[in-house]
């Protein structure tokens, strides 16, 4: 037999820079309730904030919160708690924590758990459960939470032994933040919270030995690193395909070094926006279904794709069979299951992106780089021919959403964090914002969760209260979770929301226009229902409506100046606007559809 994967434990390595876990001095065993042990364990993990909503089964845990330094943010719906925890994790890199009760509260968490799972967001969810003797009897507010959430969490546990609470909490934070990050759920029966426990904070070794099957591999294979360096040096048309894993492993600096040292252009996927500065000369922006022409085409024509912390999502590859046909692939990912899942890499490297990139950069020292001048000139040709483009605003017409995004971007205070919902506005946000700093983009990529924006922005503002947080939402998305602005107002979390209100489920409308012969089925929402200004004011926000182009700038400036409560701006935008470029679902990236005013076939024009 031979061992294919050799892995060693790296318990102390965490992706984010959290403060070290607090140490306990040697004291006689302490008696406390399970609930006290739970809250104390969260304190030991340096949790500063918990997003939650109390209820019957989790009630015991809410008592010790009164005596804890942990800030509790009372949400209006448990889905909000989950997305807030995600938003917090997106901007801080530290796990967000959600605390809710059993049954419907736990099922309300399923969407954010799945969202966090798809986007590898570190999160710890704690749900109440009915008392142990009642489990399995269909008791009031009982549901099989671990059963329901099994396929949308990295791991979950039903805690049946009260004395295991501290160990389970330590395991949860360890699992959520190491390896490929993700959500971990702990389901705690009410009588477990009420039971008397002997406090025992487990050591690193105890946590490690309690997880005999969990040993993420962080260090790349030396042979593969060497091979990667060779391929990179020889490539004449390389592209770095950077994914969200760059941000998860804090590898933005390493990525920059690799790109600059080799002169390799970089595309940043939707999840990786900000991982490489948009104002860098080597930055090509976002690839994929609504990426820009240059990013898409450079990948298609490349002879080497250096895929870092990315999973070859169908929204990026388009039709897989025709994706980057001439490119060799170097694929670096901490999750071995991603290597070869969609496209077989020539050089697969399992490991932490930051470490592996560092190792590749070191291995590059003994190589000279191939000449890439021709490649760079082809790329700049595409950039010149196919910039992002939209029709200019015409007096009397509704606002152009892209223009609103540009003004929002230009007036944003330095370091502004941008959150978005899902749909056309999300794509315009990603396209027209200038991301020059990592951890400034909060977004639901994999699951595409409408309703993500408002609560995620609130969580982001809690995580980075020093930053301005703008939430760009669609009118459809906003109506799903807007009530969390009540949470924001009452908890004094001054986020700013720009609704790009085109009165439609815009992305669906775009598809119906392009692929269903303009048969608009069930996508019209009405621009005035609800009255967003009144609604926002009722929730304690400052609110404005903008219909005229000349109002865009002054109202955004006014919103930027408000810092004592949330602000909502209802921008009335043009429903006919579509997101371009576009690669229709299932089509090849060679068939990217550019704005109707731009002529296709740019490659021929350049040569």
């Amino acid at each position, binding site marked *: *037999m031979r061992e*294919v994967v*050799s892995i060693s434990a790296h318990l102390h390595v965490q992706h984010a820079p959290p403060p070290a876990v607090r140490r306990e001095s040697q004291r006689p065993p302490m008696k406390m309730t399970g609930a006290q042990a739970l809250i104390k364990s969260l304190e030991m993990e340096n949790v500063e904030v918990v997003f939650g909503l109390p209820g019957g089964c989790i009630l015991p845990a809410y008592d010790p919160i009164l005596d804890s330094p942990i800030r509790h943010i009372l949400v209006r719906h448990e889905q909000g708690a989950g997305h807030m925890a995600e938003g917090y994790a997106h901007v801080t890199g530290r796990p967000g924590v959600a605390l809710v009760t059993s049954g419907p509260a736990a099922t309300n968490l399923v969407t954010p758990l799945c969202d966090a799972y798809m986007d590898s967001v570190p999160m710890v969810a704690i749900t109440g459960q009915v008392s142990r003797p009642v489990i399995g009897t269909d008791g009031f507010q009982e549901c099989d939470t671990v059963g329901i959430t099994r396929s949308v969490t990295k791991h979950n546990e039903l805690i049946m032994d009260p004395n295991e609470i501290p160990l389970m909490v330590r395991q949860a934070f360890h*699992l959520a933040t190491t390896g490929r990050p993700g959500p971990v759920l702990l389901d705690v029966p009410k009588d477990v919270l009420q039971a008397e426990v002997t406090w025992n904070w487990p050591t690193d070794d105890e946590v490690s030995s309690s997880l005999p*099957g969990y040993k993420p591999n962080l260090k790349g294979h030396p042979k593969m690193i060497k091979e990667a360096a060779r391929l990179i040096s020889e490539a004449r048309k390389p592209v770095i395909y950077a994914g969200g894993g760059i941000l998860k492993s804090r590898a933005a600096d390493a990525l920059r070094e690799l790109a600059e040292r080799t002169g390799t252009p970089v595309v940043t996927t939707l999840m990786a926006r900000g991982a490489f500065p948009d104002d860098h000369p080597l930055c090509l922006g976002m690839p994929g279904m609504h990426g820009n022409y240059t990013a898409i085409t450079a990948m298609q024509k490349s002879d080497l794709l250096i895929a870092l912390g990315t999973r070859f999502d169908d929204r990026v590859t388009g039709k897989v069979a025709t994706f980057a046909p001439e490119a060799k692939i170097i694929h670096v990912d901490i*999750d*071995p299951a991603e290597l070869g899942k969609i496209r077989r890499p020539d050089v697969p490297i399992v490991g932490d992106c930051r470490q592996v990139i560092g190792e590749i950069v070191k291995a590059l020292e003994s190589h000279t780089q191939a000449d890439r001048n021709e490649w760079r000139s082809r790329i700049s040709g595409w950039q010149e021919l196919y910039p992002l483009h939209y029709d200019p605003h015409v007096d009397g017409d509704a606002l152009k959403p892209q223009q609103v995004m540009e003004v929002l971007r230009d007036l944003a205070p330095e370091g502004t964090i941008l959150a978005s919902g899902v749909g056309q506005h999300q794509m315009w946000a990603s396209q027209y914002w200038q991301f020059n700093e990592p951890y400034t983009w909060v977004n639901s990529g994999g699951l595409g969760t409408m309703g993500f924006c408002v609560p995620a922005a609130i969580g982001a503002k809690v995580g980075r209260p020093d930053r301005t947080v703008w939430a760009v939402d669609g009118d459809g998305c906003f109506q799903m979770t807007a009530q969390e602005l009540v949470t924001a107002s009452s908890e004094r979390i001054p986020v700013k929301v720009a609704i790009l209100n085109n009165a439609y489920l815009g992305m669906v409308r775009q598809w119906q226009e392009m692929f269903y012969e303009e048969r608009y089925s069930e996508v019209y929402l009405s621009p005035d229902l609800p009255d967003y200004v009144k609604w926002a004011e009722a929730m304690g926000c400052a609110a404005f409506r903008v219909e005229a182009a000349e109002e865009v700038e002054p109202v955004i400036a006014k919103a930027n100046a408000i810092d004592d409560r949330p602000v909502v701006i209802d921008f009335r935008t043009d429903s006919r606007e579509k997101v371009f470029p576009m690669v229709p679902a299932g089509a090849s990236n060679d068939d990217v559809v550019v704005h109707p005013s731009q002529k296709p076939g740019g490659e021929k024009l350049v040569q």
Partner: protein
Amino acid sequence: MSVLNHQTLSVLVENRSGVLARISGLFARRGFNIISLAVAPSDDARFSRINIVIDVEETSVEQITKQLFKLVNVVKITELLPSDSVERELLMATVAAGPDQRGAVIELVGVFEGKIVDVGADALTVMLAGEPDKLDDLEELMRPYGITELQRTGRVALPKLERQASPRLRLTGKAS
């Protein structure tokens, strides 16, 4: 039930509640098909061993193995090809056989070195432990008499000792 191009994944897992559900859920969600499944405690009380037989033509063993690895409770996975392993299974069947046919059935089971474990007025319960192919053969030959109940255990497998260095046998274990 025998599939020519099958492979056994011998999966060592932590003895915790819900682990089997995690594994079967993973197979169900990703559309991987299980031919046979056998679960029992291992030599170490902390762990159980799950033997999963899959059709290698229909599924990517590599992707299944990698996905299984991601489950926190999975400790080690050994991939066993039939040619590199010893496979066994147990069959129990109740066969309709009145006094006239009883002798024939007993003889048949005898040829296979099986056992008669229960005798009724019009039926026999037979048992055979052995290679899955043999079980298939016996099942086929008993069918004309009328099998009224059939139970098979699912396959267990261990690597062949003399072929431990075979490159086709892969230990993909996480445990070092």
